[in-house]
């Protein structure tokens, strides 16, 4: 391996870009699993579904980012429907049934994957945009534009969600339902409706995350398996439900992976990233920003 300060700088830069992308693909899960305690293992599958919808809109000339934004309302409604079913079938029947709901989400992920295979086949799908396949040159350094775009969109997405959760009434209600559901009920709010709304937001965000996924690289129906470990790791490392933590955790994973990969070997990258997760959880079981 070649060691130099210049390479280290580039590794950190690539890590920041990758980390923001990791945070963006995890933020929906941070709401659904982190705030609502819903074992949403189908989150990456929904995201891949978002990628395919982005691909379809791309065939009609939509830019992937625009397509992701256009898809958000439809995915919001999908999320509302999915949560309602989960609530009626599992959560309503007590916490044990809620945990059993994990099987429901595994099933949902499988249905999404098989559905995509039947509709699109198993081949990879890509989208086209001016910023895909090109790079920005800064002296010797070349930064892929697709990563920069994903970085920018991820930051805006997270900032918007953070503001929504802290500055709006519904946003604060979502945070409240995560902290003390009975108290929220006593205040006259319906926790189920709030959770339904929040799950809708989480799923809507997944549409845009799916657009980022297909911008970063080609997708195929089984791609959710690549992201299931990483997204849960980011959310747990962040501290369940913390949006700032999600960004920080994504950056930690991205930068550590990138530095280890550049200087010590790619095979060590996931081991170091997940090792960090274990160390942080050993010291702070509630995660970096968890209470």
């Amino acid at each position, binding site marked *: 391996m070649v060691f130099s300060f210049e390479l280290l700088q580039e590794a950190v830069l690539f890590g920041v870009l990758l980390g923001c992308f990791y945070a963006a693909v995890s933020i929906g899960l941070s709401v659904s699993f982190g705030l609502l305690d819903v074992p949403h293992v189908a989150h990456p599958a929904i995201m891949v579904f978002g990628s395919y919808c982005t691909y379809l809109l791309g065939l009609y000339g939509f830019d992937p980012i625009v397509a992701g934004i256009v898809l958000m309302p439809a995915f919001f409604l999908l999320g509302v429907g999915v949560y309602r079913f989960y609530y009626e079938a599992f959560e309503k029947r007590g916490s044990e049934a809620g945990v059993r709901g994990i099987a429901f989400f595994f099933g949902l992920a499988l249905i999404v994957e098989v559905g995509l295979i039947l509709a699109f086949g198993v*081949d990879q799908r890509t989208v086209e945009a001016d910023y895909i396949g090109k790079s920005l040159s800064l002296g010797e350094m070349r930064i892929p534009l697709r*990563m920069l775009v994903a970085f920018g969109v991820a930051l805006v997405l997270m900032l918007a969600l953070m503001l929504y959760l802290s500055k709006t009434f519904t946003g604060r209600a979502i945070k409240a339902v995560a902290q003390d559901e009975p108290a929220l009920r006593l205040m006259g709010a319906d926790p189920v409706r709030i959770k339904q709304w929040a799950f809708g937001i989480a799923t809507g965000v997944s549409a845009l995350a799916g657009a980022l996924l297909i911008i970063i*690289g080609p997708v195929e129906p089984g791609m959710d398996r690549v992201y299931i470990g990483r997204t849960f790791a980011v959310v747990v490392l962040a501290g369940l439900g913390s949006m700032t933590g999600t960004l920080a955790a994504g950056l930690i994973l991205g930068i550590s992976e990138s530095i280890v990969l550049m200087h010590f070997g790619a095979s060590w*990258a996931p081991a170091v990233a997940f090792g960090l997760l274990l160390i942080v959880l050993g010291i702070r079981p509630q995660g970096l920003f968890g209470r």
Partner: protein
Amino acid sequence: MKILSLVAGLLFSALALAQQGPIKVGMSMPQTGTLGAGGKAALVALNMWVEDVNGRGGLLGRKVELIAYDDQTNPALTPAIYTKLLDIDKVDLLIAPYGTVPTAPIMPLVKQRDLLLMGNFSFQVNRTVKHDKWFNNSPWNDASSWSDGFIKNGQKLGAKSIAFLAADQEFAQNLANGARVLAKKAGLKTVYDQNYPPATVDFSTMIRGIRAAKPDMVFVMSYPNDSVAIVRAVNEIGVGESVKMFGGGMVGLQFTPIMASLGSMLNGIVNYNSYVPGMKYPGIEEFLSRYAKKAVAAKVDPLGFYLPPFNYAIGQMYEQAIKATKSLNHKVLADYLHKNEMKTIVGPIRYGPDGEWKNARVVQAQFRGIVDKDVDQFRQPGKQVVLYPDRYKTGNVMAPFEKIRK
């Protein structure tokens, strides 16, 4: 009376054949997951052979039936699938799943039960098992057969150093080890050697690392998803002016949807292949033309140069061996396959004692003049110029890599 007894005899024979049921050929095939695209295309070809052989009246007077389960490119599933095929479905013949990783776990099973297994583009899975009833359909044999052409062409260009980038999986590692040995023998200095985990999302950092190492040639051993990401990262980051040749063992760059999506980004890459347009074998063009029609309906690789002809060849080899020996006995069939030349649409095949091809025929070809958004261009000879082996050669390698891509 005589006629009556003859008719009765014929009816009885027909009934006996019907009672025997079809000859069942069983396999698992990746139809989802990383190798799913290749696996589904290969299945189309195998089903074509089943249709063809049944159209010719079947084998030993019995129809042929293919039973194929999806192994999801998951090696953990294949032993259970093959146990089911043997013990519940009671298949007569076996074909291995496409790929090294799903095949490796079933090798102990077939050896223990002493069964004939037709391999399906796996790499060196029988090296340590040493099963005498293993016959691979792939045009490579030992580790050097794959990378030999790449290294030799690099030497012709005066390369002195090499970088390796390989997936951390059995297939890629076997291949990488073979290439490393050949590179060492050729006196090439290894300036970068990286194994990456299968779930790697972005390769920008690795490509930057390669550029910093300034190698003369870069040998890559990757799976389809990774290959696409690597080619994109190379296009964005660049591998530097020192690199004369790039490619070698990238799986996926043989699949039409991937070639079509990468388009001009492929230019200059030298990569292995099993067949490229222009190579002449009896029956292959007719097969490819029939396959192309079925592929559209099956939503699989529309050209099907890489895997489908070699899967059809598996069927042809079974057909030839069963017709010649009039037997389904695995030992009898294996003896025949060992001793005789098999005539297939991918050319004549003779097997060595290890069940791999006696004479390897891995093609190293360079992508040239590829434009974006044109699938049909890949049907033309000359878009992939054959550099190796010499008897199929259609041109010399062009270098340096970055310059010829412009």
